[in-house]
């Protein structure tokens, strides 16, 4: 059986004054029904552009997809879908929640009418029953006193409640896939935990698949079945969460893990990865990580690494792993 969502060779670029910015370059991954995929990486590595590309929310122009890019949802290529069909997928089959709940809700509409709008965009449902359903949904996402809240405006709610409203909006039509783009980054740590728990409970109840985008490895460790690590617009390593955490194959992943404070180890100075993420208009030659890589060999400077299988569905794009006897499947 083919996976629920299959992203193949996704390349998204933007035409800018400084040349073409290759924000996402040849990203491939798959998502099975009911699975949680953690998409991890630093700011500017292309996580958000990947997510927006899936729903075709990238403004075109200046955004552009390469001709080989394919995003197959239930065997339909979303990149070839006419706008009308696409609209039926957005919200109903694939929904998304964003990083900043404050700016993601329309300030001039009540939260109830924004939730009702999602419903009315996809179902033939009366205004009254849509707003009744909106109240129910607010209850489902754990907002106290939903009958009152439904008539309030976003600025009257706290950040955590606003994010709950966003979740209610996204889940209103029971989508098969939820893309969560750093949904907890803008929130307090305690609220973060509540929102995560809510998301995971709802995921279990509805049996949907989740793409969880974050830069926080601690979060994905707890919730993701599989992890894909992005660097410089490419996925450099992906595999089952425990495998990636225990035996990171890519030096970048290794660096990231060393940079996370651990409660179960003695406190020492945290390791940092030297340098910063290169810009998308001028990626380094060869492996994009080589200027910052502690283990680079000569080949890394000239040739882009292909994807190597390191066992148990665990892949890494790195020349160094070949020395450990891994076999490449030739794909980037």
């Amino acid at each position: 059986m083919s996976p629920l969502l299959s992203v193949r060779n996704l390349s998204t670029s933007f035409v800018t004054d400084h040349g073409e910015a290759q924000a996402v370059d040849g990203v491939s991954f798959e998502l099975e029904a009911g699975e949680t995929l953690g998409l991890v990486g630093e700011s500017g590595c292309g996580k958000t552009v990947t997510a927006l590309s899936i729903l075709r929310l990238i403004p075109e122009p200046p955004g552009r997809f390469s001709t080989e890019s394919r995003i197959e949802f239930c065997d339909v290529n979303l990149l070839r879908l006419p706008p009308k069909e696409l609209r039926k997928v957005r919200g109903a089959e694939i929904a998304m929640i964003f990083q900043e709940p404050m700016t993601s809700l329309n300030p001039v509409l009540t939260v109830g009418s924004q939730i009702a709008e999602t419903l009315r965009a996809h179902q033939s449902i009366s205004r009254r029953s849509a707003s009744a359903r909106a109240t129910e949904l607010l209850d489902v996402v754990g907002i106290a006193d939903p009958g009152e809240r439904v008539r309030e405006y976003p600025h009257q709610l706290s950040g955590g409640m606003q994010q709950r409203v966003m979740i209610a909006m996204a889940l209103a039509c029971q989508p098969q896939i939820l893309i969560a783009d750093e949904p907890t980054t803008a929130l307090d740590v305690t609220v973060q935990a509540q929102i995560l728990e809510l998301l995971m409970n709802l995921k279990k109840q509805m049996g949907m698949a989740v793409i969880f985008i974050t830069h926080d490895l601690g979060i994905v460790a707890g919730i993701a079945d599989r992890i894909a690590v992005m660097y410089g617009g490419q996925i450099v390593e992906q595999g089952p969460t425990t495998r990636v955490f225990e035996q990171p194959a890519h030096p970048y992943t290794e660096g990231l893990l060393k940079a996370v404070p651990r409660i179960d180890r003695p406190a020492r100075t945290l390791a940092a990865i030297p340098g910063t993420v290169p810009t998308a208009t001028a990626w380094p030659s060869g492996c994009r990580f080589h200027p910052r890589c502690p283990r680079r060999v000569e080949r890394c400077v000239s040739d882009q690494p292909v994807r190597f299988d390191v066992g148990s569905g665990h892949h890494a794009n790195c020349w160094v792993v070949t020395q450990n006897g891994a076999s490449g499947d030739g794909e980037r």
Partner: protein
Amino acid sequence: MKSWLLWAAVVGAVIATMRFARVVELLRTGSPAATLVALAALGLPVAALACWRWCPPASFRPEGFLGRVVRNRRFTVGLTVVASLSAAAILAPVLTPYAPHVQLDLATLARLPPSFAHPFGTDGFSRDILSRVLHGARYSLSVAALSIGLAITLGTMVGLVAGMSGGVIDGALMRCVDAGLAIPRLFFLLVIISLWDTVSLPTLILVLGLTGWFGTSRLVRAEVLSLRQREYIVAARAVGVGRWRLVQRHILPNIASPIIVTAALGMGNIVLIEAGLSYLGIGVRVPTPSWGNIIRDGHELMATAPWISIAPGIAIVFTVLGFSLLGDGLHSAINPRRR
């Protein structure tokens, strides 16, 4: 603020009582417009009294957006001026002692200076200038309001289409707007209007409206472009909200305030343009009174009977000032940086 309402109620009641015969006469004619005017004459004092009676106490400081607008001094003064002028225009048939075109007595009543019988004097044809200015207000203000309405609607639609579609359509529309903005408006109007021998009021409104939307479309397009990048617009698209609904529910309400400000500021401008055209004799044509052509009636007699041109001139000044204050007050109430 509150005492003004009582004043308005008292003044309105006095006028309605003094000219009660005229109200009855208007009701008798049975034409819908006359009936409306008569009912307004009776209703406005009652409304003012009701507002005064049930108005919140003076210590009441309204909060939120409306509160900010109402607390703005420039806005309230502007609104008062505009509302008084509009009320005077609506009630002109009740307020004025004569019909605007009646020549009282060419031999003895022409060019009289202001007096109790004729507060603004009479003109060269022995017509009462107060009656002409108040009736002129109806034409001047309604021409301005209707053409601004048309211009704002058109400008908003073009701006929305350009901003939402982008690319070639956007480029083409904006180049047309550039061309429209490059031609001096008054010159453009003179050329268009000179195509006809006589310009009917609807044509005048149409021409003024069709030449006034360029600036608005620019503004709306810019607002749409910046709004489209906002996360909540992207979020709305992400849940599958369609294009039309996106515009109607998410974009329009968020750009309404700058549009309203432009409309208010544009009113003053278009009153001036209409006055200019009427002064040149190509706007509202005599004998229909408008402020511009009353000034024209008086310009040859400026040395001997200056009051003919002065009264409509003052009316124009107050209107432009009123709308400017109104628009400016709204602007600073809306714009948080100027609060």
